């Protein structure tokens, strides 16, 4: 079973990466690009076969290690 943890900076936390990417896209002539935010995605191969349990485990991993919950929020999706 696969889990995908998406980690983004919390709203209101400065995202220098996103900001710089946005400016670069404008520089390349892409119009109509508003806010850009950059985050991390972590794909985990899990032995667990029960989707609910896999999700709970991945959430636990995110809280304990993958995300820095002081500044980041995360979301877990289970993919078969």
């Amino acid at each position, binding site marked *: 079973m696969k889990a995908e943890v998406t980690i983004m*900076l919390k709203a*209101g*936390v*400065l*995202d*220098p990466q996103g*900001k*710089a990417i946005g*400016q670069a896209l404008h520089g390349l002539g892409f119009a109509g690009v508003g806010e850009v935010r950059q985050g991390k995605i972590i794909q985990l191969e899990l032995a667990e076969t029960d989707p609910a349990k896999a999700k709970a485990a991945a959430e636990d991993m995110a809280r304990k290690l993958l995300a*820095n919950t*002081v*500044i980041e929020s995360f979301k877990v999706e289970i993919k078969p």
Partner: protein
Amino acid sequence: MAQQVNQALAKQFGLSADEYGRVLAIMGRTPSFTELGVFSVMWSEHCSYKSSRVWLKTLPTKAPWVIHGPGENAGVVDIGDGLAAVFKMESHNHPSFIEPYSGAATGVGGILRDVFTMGARPVANLNALRFGDPKLAVTKRVVDGVVRGIGGYGNCVGVPTVGGEVNFHPAYNGNPLVNAMTVGIADRNKIFLSAAAGIGNPVVYVGSKTGRDGIHGATMASTSFEKDSEEKRPTVQIGDPFVEKLLIEACLELMATDAIIAIQDMGAAGLTSSSVEMAGKGDVGIELDLDHLPQRETEMTAYEMMLSESQERMLMVLRPDRQEMARAIFAKWDLDFAVIGQLTDTGHIVVKHKGVVEADIPLAPLADQAPLYHRPTSETPKPAALGAVADPVGLRTALLTLLACPDLASRAWIWDQYDSTIGGQTVKRPGAADAAIVRLDGHTRALALTTDCTPRYCQADPELGGMQAVVEAWRNITATGGKPLAITDNMNFANPEKPEIMGQFAAAIRGMAAACVALDFPVVSGNVSLYNETEGQPILPTPAIGGLGVLEDAAQAVGQAIAPGQTLVLIGETAGWLGQSLWLREIAGREDGPPPPIDLTAERRNGDFVRGQILSGAVRACHDVSDGGLLIAVAEMALAGNTGVALNLTGDHAFWFGEDQGRYVLAVDNAAATLVAATAAGVPAAIIGTAQGQGLTLPGIDPISLTEARAANDRFFPAWMN
């Protein structure tokens, strides 16, 4: 934010009942929410120095080479060749515990701004770090994040990190110390100050946009750190070193013109403290219209904008006829530039937002009537004398154990993550000499830079500890051949409302002042960080000292590395002082006794002699004797030069590991000449051995190979972190 302003709210904002009473008296009415915010941050410990000011005033701050002492963004000293060194140290302790990477990174960013705001190009960063017990998982997380953060910011802005110090002690478990120092170089006659002038002149904001970052950071830095800090946690500030780099270049470009009348970085308490201080110092009024403030978020209130601690922002007063030229420079660097107000003759700060006056405060009483406390002090009892302490392990085991202990282990794991060579002027990199040596681009002159403090001495005897911190900085500069010029300090202490803590503070200042006077080594800038305690556990008193010295010719600097054939000469008196030594802690498992006494006259005489010998060209390598004592100093010189030493003295553990002050080990070619010169100067000197072979040998013990010593010394950090 239609919150009722009253005493209860004032208390939440960190103002005491008495302080709120003063606010009411000054305003003659109930202040608005924004006004209360302004008072609370301006009168916070962090901005007002209300507990420490009476003591700071007693520090010596003058010397013929001091251009600007405390009171400006950073201290400024004349270093010859028409140049000035601009430097300061600042703490980011609490933020670095909450979010180690960002806390440390923004600490570096903040101190850089204090230096380039005065017109100096930053040429070196240093730091002074204290962490808790390495056995705790949280310590590892904090060390990892802090080191990455310092490197992440400093490497990106392109300022070499050339030195620092690191200690571990359980007293820092919940409250690490992250003190960052920046040194910059400016034209002696082109120093920029913050006093605003010229009624009607535009007030200009440059740099990053304002968000809701770190609101009430200054007040957070002024309270102790309890369990509920989870809730009090302000939005963590994230540093943007890329923008900082642009800001440095843009400001220096503008500073090459005559456009700037006054300039100040937005540090703690952001727009509030920068605008209040600039107007206050210039005795003018200031009016801000927040509608023009570059904002990163929507719907920000006046209160939020005034208190935001968003990073990488500066405030300037410009000549009106240079405004467009300045705007073009910031456009070139892709930075925000906005006229957000002007200077007035009202003597008030007036803040408008959406047509409403959100704050209108008279500046003079905001500054003059700021609280000032003569807090009660109680003296730290002098520690009982240490009786005889038997040697439980022998010299060989003690040496290898000490070389491997966290406080003495090689710091290469740390400095290997800091770019120390950028700029192409780093003559002595971290680990190469007692002070880092950075040449001045285009000159033969170099700076000698160091940070020092021995908190275990300060805990046992704060006066002696304060003195020792200054003396060690002086000694480290001296040991490279540098002439020590001035210091910056970072006074890290626990809760000043406790008499024993305030007593530590007062005593440390006394000791520092005595050393500064005796060594002609004045304080030109500094920072105070109080309330460093977590759940009643205070940190060790830690008056970290950043020292700056100068060498007229960078080529005269010496490092620690010895080479075969040289003779090692010990300068200074050895009594075998084990009280508060690392040997006592690491080998005997005790942290007691008085720290080693300091004889300031001997200190000065020994140091002046050593420097004279170095500058005469007689010295190949030099190292001061500090933590761990003589045998550790010799081992460090051997490891640096990859050359063994045959020691010819017989001594016990107290002789080899005692931490008597005022000592140096010199490596010379002609020891007889050194001894003659020492006798003439009235300085104790003795030959202790010869550099040769691949091991340390001393009478009565099995030789210790350099390989074995190096393995012990190199082990701790990589084993802990990888």
